[in-house]
């Protein structure tokens, strides 16, 4: 394993906590973009040898997660003129604590599973679980549609890390298919956010509450 592999994972874990504690949308999106770039670098360092497939997946990850999607989100943010996530369902400090607790639980959980020799003592699986958990916390506790999309993106990043552990088993086509689907999903979500802001003059999903049982 490459010497900067684990430091990159630590960076990803720190970015998780940063996203959980930040209220400014610009920096939340920026952190998710940085995470995307880190994922691309991880892909390059996950293997001893660089094959064409690995390089292509890494480039696609950086392009989609690090550049295209953050730009889409920035554009959506400007179009709907909002800068801050206000009034999350649970505050920023409690979500930070939940994130830290989740990271600890992720480490414990991955200890209980039988690991491949290459992954013993590595942070790869704990960071995957912790990142998925962070995505969940953001998805369920934030009220702005854009922040929820960032939550979904971080959830997918966590799954991507797990995918790196299986880079040999997962065929190239599937990796690219997954990335492409993610891109289209976020693109469609972007369109819907645009419609939401036009209809409701807000992207607060708390306003999306007319459909419920009476």
């Amino acid at each position, binding site marked *: 394993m490459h010497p900067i592999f684990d430091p990159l994972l630590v960076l990803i874990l720190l970015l998780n906590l940063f996203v959980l504690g930040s209220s400014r949308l610009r920096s939340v999106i920026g952190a998710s973009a940085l995470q995307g770039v880190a994922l691309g670098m991880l892909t390059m360092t996950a293997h001893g040898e660089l094959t064409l497939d690995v390089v292509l997946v890494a480039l696609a990850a950086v392009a989609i997660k690090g550049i295209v999607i953050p730009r889409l989100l920035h554009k959506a943010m400007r179009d709907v003129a909002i800068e801050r996530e206000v009034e999350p369902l649970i505050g920023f400090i409690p979500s930070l604590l939940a994130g830290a607790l989740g990271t600890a639980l992720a480490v414990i959980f991955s200890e*209980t*599973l*039988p*690991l*491949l020799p290459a992954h013993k003592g590595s942070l790869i699986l704990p960071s995957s679980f912790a990142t*998925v958990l962070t995505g969940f916390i953001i*998805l369920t506790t934030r009220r702005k*549609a854009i922040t*929820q999309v960032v939550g*979904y993106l971080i*959830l*997918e990043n*966590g*799954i991507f890390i*797990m*995918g790196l*552990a*299986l880079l*040999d*088993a*997962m*065929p190239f*086509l*599937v990796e690219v*298919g*997954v990335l492409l*689907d993610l891109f*289209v*999903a976020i693109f*469609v*979500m972007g369109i*819907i956010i645009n*419609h*939401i802001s036009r*209809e*409701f003059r807000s992207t607060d*999903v708390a306003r*999306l*509450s*007319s*459909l419920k*049982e*009476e």
Partner: protein
Amino acid sequence: MLILVVVVPIAMGLAALAVPSARYRPWLVPAGGVLHASLAVVILTTDLGQPMFASWLAIGALGRVLLGFVSAQFLVCSFYAPGYLALRPERSNRMFCAALLVLLGTMTLVVVSHHLGLMWVAVETSTLATAPLIYFNQNPRSLEATWKYLLIGSVGIALALFGSLFLAYAAVHAGLDSSLLFEDLVRDAPRLSKPWLHSAFVVLVVGYGTKIGLAPMHTWKPDAYGEAPGLVGALLAGGLTSCAFCALLRFVQICYAAGDGALARQLLLALGLVSMAVAAVFMARQRDYKRMLAYSSVEHMGIIAFGIGIGGLGTFGALLHLVNNGFAKGVMFLTAGNIHRAFGSKTTDGVSGAIRRVPASGGLFLAGFLAVTASPPFGLFLSELTILKAAFAGGHYWPAGVFVALLAIVFLGMASTVLGVVQGTPPAAASGRYRESVLVVAPPVVFLGLVLVLGLYVPDWLHRALVDAAAFVETAAAGGLRP
């Protein structure tokens, strides 16, 4: 051949984007349905459905049942599209027609893909193709429904991917040179790493369970089915959720092959009963008849999960129920769409006397209600009875008792809403210009006919296909089942 049945509908969907005439474009949908059905018949009756692309695409016993069902269900629904869209000239139908055909292609891909990753991509794409269908009415309510559907659905499918990776890890950990083809996973199942396999199955049940709409992951369903056009509801509740079940059954099969069938069965049995209970609670005093149908879908997905949880004859009954439910949902959603058009309201506050205002749709809605609540002689009676028989034979007395009680509660809850819609005198506000055309009445009539025929007698070839599929899911451990 297998690639054609996937690519042809998608290509027609893209062609629909290019057709300039809004009047003739909807006819591409039934054309796609007919073409798809012809291809499906060729695949099912000849040996042209050979595995392709290193077995990434293949059709086994389970796929045969699902391919035939999805194709037939879409074919009947597709003839509703031109009639319905002619009533909505104010809405652009370009995206709608394209998305319907792409949905057909991706549903087919879910059924015929035998690779873990490819199947996931297919399920995800089918979700994305559905978003424009739910957003057809382009009002704040449909916007809300689409957002919830997209977000909850995407997270569910993300979890399904996570679970798939767990399963891949189980294979890699066991030192298997795994291709991630289902055939290989089933063959090697006894050697998979157990802790990873168990975690994988739980995550996969939550992930694909979201797509199926099993409680408590069902929350997108009432909103999406409530706001989408009836045609979309019929295709989602009949076709798409069944495809998601097909995906889940692939993993049930792996569990069986690994000797862990009991774990899979217990989990599905519990989720099935929870889904039926949640549906029963929310169907009582439900005034919105389209949301009522959504909960009915939750209930029936619960029944199918229950049947698979019983196993053996129960799995056969569950597969038969999947077919019956898909056709019965066609009757309900399509006629509910007609009633919605005629009255301009989808709650019992604004709708009454449907049988006078729109006699055909009102009558079919009532008959469909009897079919959906498993009254004899409809097919759902037969399939639910089969599941129940299997439950008693397997000694599951308590679950079987709860099952029957919940069915009765659902019947009562649904009856009050349906009778409120059908009986009485139509409100004065409902005397608009809407008249039932042949195109919007014939498809539900055909669906009702199918459910009735399946109740009176299950043709030999279908019976054999279902038995084969149930055996395929459960006894793969015996080995030698490579198609």
